[in-house]
């Protein structure tokens, strides 16, 4: 039972990370209809920035804020410089550009910081934090930080004029433009916010998966799965989907483990995590493309 609870807790912690990245993906998808394949690598890059700042002597939280700010600027720049001209381009061009970004982020991070795996510190105090035996201090911290970030984002979109303008720009660009919203900049801002949220996820997960240029590959895939489970056009759904998928991932590994213990037959374990994500992605896409909370889109011919 205790093991079960541990797995559940660690599933929730993973889920918080997936929820963040999935939210970043959904934010970009809602406003531009693009799936950002480079989201994970952008987050990885920001995580390296924070690591670099810490080795230069800054404290964790200062480095955290600077790195998140950096990735916000990076996101805005990428949107303005690289993606703006492709706004009406066919899908293949957009996908190719995202893969190009992915390759650049990955290889440049490898070139600057090398492909050696690095330890990444946890900012949360080790003692008297967390519930002994069930959830570790870092896991609890991750869940708290992501919940704070998600609440802030929700408040921003719900209660501020800028958030309202951004939602308007995403939902109906033409109308928004007519009432004086600068849609172009709203899209860029959305990109910046998405990159920043992704960076939070990267920095939070680095302590768990260790820091290396390929650390986000699996996480991005799970985030896609989460966004799909929640319905790819629905920010709230992405967050719920993140937690569902995080728990599901750990439960599948746990069940595999129990089966192996009981019967001695190995079916599935930690080594098949990406395969599980692949199955979730294909399953949702083919069986229920709208996800749990998404709208069914009817295409007019």
């Amino acid at each position, binding site marked *: 039972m205790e093991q079960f609870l541990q797995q559940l807790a660690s599933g929730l912690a993973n889920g918080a990370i997936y929820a963040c990245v999935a939210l970043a993906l959904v934010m970009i998808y809602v406003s531009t209809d693009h799936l950002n394949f480079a989201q994970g690598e952008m987050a990885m890059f920001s995580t390296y920035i924070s690591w670099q700042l810490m080795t230069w002597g800054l404290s964790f939280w200062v480095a955290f804020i600077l790195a998140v700010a950096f990735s916000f600027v990076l996101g805005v720049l990428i949107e303005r410089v690289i993606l703006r001209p492709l706004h009406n381009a066919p899908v*293949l061009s957009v*996908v190719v550009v995202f893969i190009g970004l*992915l390759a650049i982020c990955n290889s440049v991070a490898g070139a600057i910081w090398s492909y050696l795996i690095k330890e990444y510190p946890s900012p949360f105090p080790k003692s008297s934090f967390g519930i002994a035996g069930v959830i570790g201090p870092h896991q609890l911290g991750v869940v708290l930080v992501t919940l704070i970030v998600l609440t802030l984002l929700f408040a921003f979109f719900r209660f501020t004029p800028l958030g309202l303008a951004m939602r308007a720009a995403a939902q109906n660009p033409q109308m928004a433009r007519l009432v004086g919203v600068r849609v172009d900049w709203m899209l860029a801002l959305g990109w910046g916010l998405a990159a920043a949220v992704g960076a939070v996820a990267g920095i939070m997960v680095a302590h768990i998966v260790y820091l290396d240029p390929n650390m986000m590959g699996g996480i991005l895939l799970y985030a896609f799965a989460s966004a799909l489970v929640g319905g790819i056009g629905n920010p709230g759904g992405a967050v719920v989907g993140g937690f569902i998928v995080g728990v599901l991932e750990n439960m599948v590994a746990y069940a595999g483990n129990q089966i192996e213990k009981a019967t001695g037959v190995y079916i599935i374990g930690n080594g098949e995590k990406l395969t599980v994500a692949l199955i979730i992605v294909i399953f949702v896409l083919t069986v229920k493309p709208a996800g749990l909370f998404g709208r069914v889109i009817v295409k007019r011919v």
Partner: protein
Amino acid sequence: MPAFPKKWLIVLLVLGVVVPLLQPVLPNLVSDYRLFLVSTMMIAAIAVLGLNLLTGFNGQISLGHGAFYAVGAYIAAILMDQANFPYWATLPFAAVLCFIVGYLFGLPALKLEGHYLALATFALALAVPQILKYKWLEGLTGGVQGIVLNKPEVPFGLPLSEDQWLYYYCFIVMVFLYWAASNILKSRSGRAMMAIRDYHIAADTMGIDTALYKTVTFGISAAYTGIAGALSASAIAFVAPDSFNFFLSIKFLIGLVVGGVGSLAGSLIGGVFYVLVDNSAQALSTFVKNDLGLQFDLSAYTVFGILLIVLMYLMPMGIAGGVYALIRSFRRAAPVSPERSAPAATRKPAQAGESH
């Protein structure tokens, strides 16, 4: 389709046959290493050709062709390792099995379009190394260690070196597959494939069985890439799961984009190109460090990434398409019409806005 003019094709074929035989005369120019390099280029060209059949001519995006390459390589390796098959006999098996795998993957892909298909294949590419390491397959695949093989031996006592023979082996397979692909595309089926790419619904109304064509194209495309994988297994004489990571699929994509989406001849250029850049990454890096004075390890993937983005702006038809258009505009022949097989890249700009 910007096909090679016939006389150039013949010149290239003759050169391809004759040059390796010059090894005794020009041992430095035609070294064993260079022949091996050209062999890997031809293998790459076949893989890119496969991807192009699917993406360029049928409009289905795949970021996961590394998976089919891996399946082909592993089929070949397992047959040679466990069943003592001769290396050449593995190709049909790899082709058939990859066709089946590709066909099966094409079934769910039928329901997916554009970004979603890209996502599904992206997931496939990421999961491949893990699937290859799966515990139950370990007996066959050798797990993390992979499988060590022998290089193809020169048959019939021909007076050739191993690398010369490997070259001819790949050359024959490539020429055959190129010929087959160009015939498929010229046929009724090929036109159906392209019609589906250009306007799915119109093709449907004209009586083309779009589901059948799309899945079979997926299968053929996978078979091509699988054959390339099988060839690479015998050429490198080694397979291991981690060499079939996502970056392999990126290489095919760069081959596709550089060569030109929807250009057969371009696929060859694309394959040559990515092997060339991959192999000169070290030289590039030293060039950046010593000559430009930057402390920066330029890797092949940085070059690939920049090229992927830049080419999408400057030459959406790829280098082959771009050069072809350039030649045509020089000759001032009839006004340059968009190439018939030009990629979807130049069409359907309103697509994104319609889906709501």
